[in-house]
């Protein structure tokens, strides 16, 4: 099952206008959008698909507060779609949609889509850092900070995180039926998983919760580097959005993070610089807690300058 990564996430919401504004402010590009929603793309074309909650074309919602309606994976070739259809068709309904994609469900009830997808190749550089001991990554006289640069854009849909009522069952489904690999694991919480055709540390992370919480905890797009995570997050704060966690840097995956509340009723994250893994990697396991979740954490504050008025004299 050569699934290459996330292609799109589909949400059904009450207020399309608020969610559309949020996705645009987050940095996605609206494509074919209107009052009933539409497609909001990262730079490589991976996307959030927005629709009204009562849109009849959407798979049915989970019986919880979750607004996530479908997770669509990209595959490189049509033969992979046939293989997925054959595999999942052994014990569940699989539908071919008019757009050529497949639709089915996982063992927990999350709707899944699969389509042949060719994300646009990106030709941007990653964030370049000069450091003693290595040859310069930026040419001489090239600046690291451009205060006139437009806001950084999310590049590619990175990962989705599910709350699941039976994490062992869920992990077994993605491993045994769809060929995902577990890269790391939080004990009694859940696995970080990547599909076989993707080297990112995770495109899927699952968290064991009570059934009434089942749904999407967050989704994330990759940014070009830590500076872009901080700049984009800073801009979200300035636009009045509520920071939830971050900025900081995770340990499992090594990705920089910054999470925000959203009108989707889940968190929306920026990440950057995630580890890549292959078959040589041996999964780690740790207890999930503050020390194992982040190597450091900061919180935004208003911009400030140290040389304000002189300090009052102290005795």
């Amino acid at each position, binding site marked *: 099952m050569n699934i290459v990564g996330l292609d799109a996430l589909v949400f059904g919401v009450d207020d399309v206008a608020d969610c559309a504004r*949020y996705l645009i402010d987050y940095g996605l590009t609206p494509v074919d959008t209107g009052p009933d929603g539409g497609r909001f793309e990262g730079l490589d074309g991976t996307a959030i698909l927005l629709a009204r909650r009562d849109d009849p074309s959407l798979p049915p919602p989970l019986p919880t507060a979750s607004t996530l309606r479908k997770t669509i994976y990209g595959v490189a070739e049509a033969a992979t779609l046939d293989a997925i259809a054959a595999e999942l068709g052994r014990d569940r309904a699989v539908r071919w949609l008019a757009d050529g994609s497949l639709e089915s469900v996982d063992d927990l009830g999350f709707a899944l889509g699969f389509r042949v997808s060719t994300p646009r190749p990106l030709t941007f550089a990653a964030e370049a850092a000069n450091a003693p001991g290595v040859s310069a990554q930026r040419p001489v006289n090239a600046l690291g900070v451009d205060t006139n640069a437009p806001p950084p854009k999310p590049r590619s849909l990175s990962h989705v995180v599910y709350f699941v009522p039976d994490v062992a069952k869920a992990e077994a489904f993605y491993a045994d039926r769809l060929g995902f690999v577990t890269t790391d694991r939080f004990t009694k919480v859940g696995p970080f998983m990547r599909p076989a055709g993707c080297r990112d540390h995770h495109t899927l992370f699952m968290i064991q919760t009570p059934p009434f919480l089942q749904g999407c905890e967050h989704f994330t797009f990759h940014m070009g580097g830590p500076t872009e995570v901080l700049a984009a997050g800073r801009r979200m704060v300035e636009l009045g959005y*509520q920071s*939830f966690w971050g900025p900081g840097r995770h340990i499992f995956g090594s990705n920089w993070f910054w999470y925000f509340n959203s*009108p*989707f009723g*889940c*968190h929306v994250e920026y990440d950057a610089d995630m580890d890549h893994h292959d078959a040589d990697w041996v999964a780690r396991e740790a207890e999930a807690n503050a020390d194992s979740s982040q190597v450091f954490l900061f919180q935004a504050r208003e911009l400030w300058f140290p040389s304000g008025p002189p300090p009052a004299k102290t005795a």
Partner: protein
Amino acid sequence: MDGAPQALHPVPLCRVDELPPNGARGFDPLGQGRDALFVVRRGDTLRAYRNRCPHWPGAPMAWRKDGYLSPDGGHIVCYAHGARFDIDTGDCVHGPCPGQSLQSLPLIRRADGLLLVPRDALDLRTAS
């Protein structure tokens, strides 16, 4: 507001007519850098709750400044994980924290329309 509020004195929030007639507004009366509480006004009815979802300790609830209500204005929503709460009681009616409630705060409404919250109700030890 100049300086820190004095202990035991009620802390002013705003005038009632500065609240949206049917909506919510968050307040940071102690200058903690984020809204500690929010007030929901529906006509002449006011409710105040701590900005802290019972589902997740310390979780701020709005999705943007003052964004505490559902799009139809019928519920308080935690936009961290989608919990919905009854506006009058603060009880969770859907989502991640069944059986739990928002922490309500008493409001003082002066004759001139100024709204205040008792200083001790903002107890920093439990404030998010």
